[in-house]
């Protein structure tokens, strides 16, 4: 009985591990340091077919090909920037999951700062107006208004 249970556990573990093989089907580079660099680059490059995945996460044919090219360039002695440049030269800045800072993306990168500044200006102007309202001395009531007020209060009194 115990042996069957153990066999079942092993079978379960093996089956559970299958999805792990689904990624990383391609042969890794022999040098672990180079392979680690390749993986980091893979994670930074967008898969063009599935768009919101990196080529590391995707098994589309093109992603597999691009992973192989990244490994080839690393083995050929390119540094990380050269490898990324090789892919960008063919597919444009669009393949970078983290867009570079340039004229076209200045608004994208600047937007958070601009929005925070706008928020600060808005909050301060509201604040200032509220304080001005609170500080202002109200115009005194006219005799007519005072009479009316007294009448209203008088009516409410028990």
């Amino acid at each position, binding site marked *: 009985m115990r042996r069957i249970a153990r066999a079942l556990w092993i079978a379960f573990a093996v089956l559970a591990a299958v999805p792990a093989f689904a990624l990383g089907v391609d042969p890794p580079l022999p040098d672990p340091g180079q392979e680690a660099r390749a993986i980091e680059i893979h994670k930074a490059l967008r898969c063009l077919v599935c*768009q919101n995945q990196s080529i590391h996460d995707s098994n589309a044919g093109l992603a597999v090909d691009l992973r192989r090219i990244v490994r080839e360039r690393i083995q050929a002695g390119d540094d990380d920037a050269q490898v990324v440049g090789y892919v960008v030269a063919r597919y*444009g800045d669009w393949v970078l999951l983290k867009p570079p800072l340039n004229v076209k993306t200045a608004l994208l990168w600047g937007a958070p700062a601009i929005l925070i500044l706008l928020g600060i200006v808005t909050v301060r102007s509201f604040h200032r107006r509220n304080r001005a309202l609170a500080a202002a001395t109200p115009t005194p009531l006219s005799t007519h208004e005072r009479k009316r007020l007294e009448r209203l209060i008088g009516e409410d009194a028990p």
Partner: protein
Amino acid sequence: MRLGTVLPIAIFAALAVALGVGLTLNPREIPSALIDKPVPEFDLPPVAGKPLGLASRDLKAGEVALVNVFASWCVACREEHPLLMELARTKRVAVHGLNYKDAPSDAQRWLAEWGDPYARAGADRSGRVGIDFGVYGVPETFVVDGHGRIVLKHIGPIMPADLETKILPAVAKARAQR
């Protein structure tokens, strides 16, 4: 009207217009990095059964041409195929084929079945030349001027409207500039 009233409405209107325009764009269309750049250097053997392969020097011979990336496994390629056949028949512009990641026998059978519009057709079995061209979805079509410079890239099947409003005008412009 006070600024405090106008400003939020103005910001909302600007956002609505910007996002509205964004909705009409096709997120699948990625601007090519190769526009106005020379074609990559390559030299491909012919597709099985065809006499002429395709190399970068063929695109520098002075004639404006289309380079159509196709594959037998590509369903959308069949959609544009009659249009390419028509172009080849009327000889409005030379059409070359780049057979992307295809088995030779499949490509040969496909051209036999649906017709062969290509003056030259190179077999890119590994897909490396396709990657050098920045290909990410077949079919794609490049307009190359006679000096091997890419002037236009069309992604997806060519519809008649694309041909008339995008591709042929680009061909005419490239011819005029020669």
